[in-house]
């Protein structure tokens, strides 16, 4: 059933966020450290195991894939609920700082990419799952 997939996804996110929160507490900072990243690793590992055991049935998969397919609309809703007005009214120093840091960070992507480049393939592999994600939204 689809809810199994959605429940698995939700559990991964909850566990990840709790671990991230605890990591933050352990470091003495009021921020979530890597919650989403931990949740992603959990989902990859658990769903991989279930798949290998043949327990990841198509309806279960769809319970995860729906949320993956709804990702772009969620991002559109996110952009529509940003405080764009405050950003634009923030004054020259805020605009300059934001602008310069983005340009510098963009320029650093190719630089850091050169560090420790493996000889392995760096291309996007179209896995079966990646392809089936394409409900195309």
């Amino acid at each position: 059933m689809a809810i199994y997939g959605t429940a698995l996804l939700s559990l991964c996110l909850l566990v990840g966020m709790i671990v991230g929160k605890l990591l933050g507490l352990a470091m003495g900072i009021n921020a979530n450290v890597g919650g989403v990243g931990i949740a992603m690793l959990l989902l990859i590992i658990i769903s991989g195991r279930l798949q290998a055991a043949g327990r990841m049935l198509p309806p279960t998969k769809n319970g995860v894939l729906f949320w993956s397919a709804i990702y772009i609309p969620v991002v559109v809703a996110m952009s529509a609920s940003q405080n764009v007005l405050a950003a634009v009214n923030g004054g020259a120093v805020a605009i300059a700082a934001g602008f310069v840091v983005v340009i510098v960070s963009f320029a650093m992507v190719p630089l850091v990419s050169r560090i420790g480049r493996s000889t392995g393939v760096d291309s996007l592999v179209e896995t079966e799952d990646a392809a089936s994600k394409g409900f195309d939204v």
Partner: protein
Amino acid sequence: MTDFLGAVESVLVKYSLVTAFAFVGTIVWLSYVASQRITKGRLHGSAIAILIGLLLAYVGGKVSGGEKGLADIPCLAGLGVMGGAMLRDLAIVATAFGVRLDEFLKTGISGVVSLLAGVLVSFFVGAIVAYGFGYRDAISMTTIGGGAATYIVGPVTGAALGASSEVKALSIAAGLIKSILVMTLTPLAAKWIGLDNPRSALIFGGLMGTTSGVAGGLAATDERLVPYGAMTATFYTGLGCLLGPSLVFFVIRMIVE
């Protein structure tokens, strides 16, 4: 007539999340049509949709005077839920489904390097810009530098150091500008910075750090890159909050005082 409008509005407000689905669906549809018909597919439909979203958020802020863009208009309040941290994170995690574990692990060291470089460079670039605009004490420079990291790192750092509320507000604004620019400029810059494979997406996430910026920017570039960028970006704000009021502040204070 007012009865009629009142009835419509009451339904839209009561079912605000459903209203948001319908509203966003319409924006996305119009954007994909515009992408095909007007730009002949050169500008990705999702990039157009995100731009429209940001423009509407500006208008929404003007009209309502609130802080959540279009979501401050009662019948569109559902946008705040749909695009809020809860569903956004759920959807981001879902994009990792089907990704192979070794694709994350083989990037290992460059992911860590990109995170450290991203946080430190953002702080120092932001601090230098702040200095140029006359904010020359170490606390203000570090706080605005934190804003150049993300709009959470800025105020958290400022609160820890005891920055003025004006400076904290500036740091939030700097972070918002960064996030908006990353959302809109990434698809344009992607070709120049080699952003077309999982490895560079992971590094990109670590260097940019703004979750909303990375989420939007990669979605508008190539949806398949999203999980990689999101993975590193998720560690960025925590690292920034950790290094800002400590290491970065000490170094900046040593330099300017």
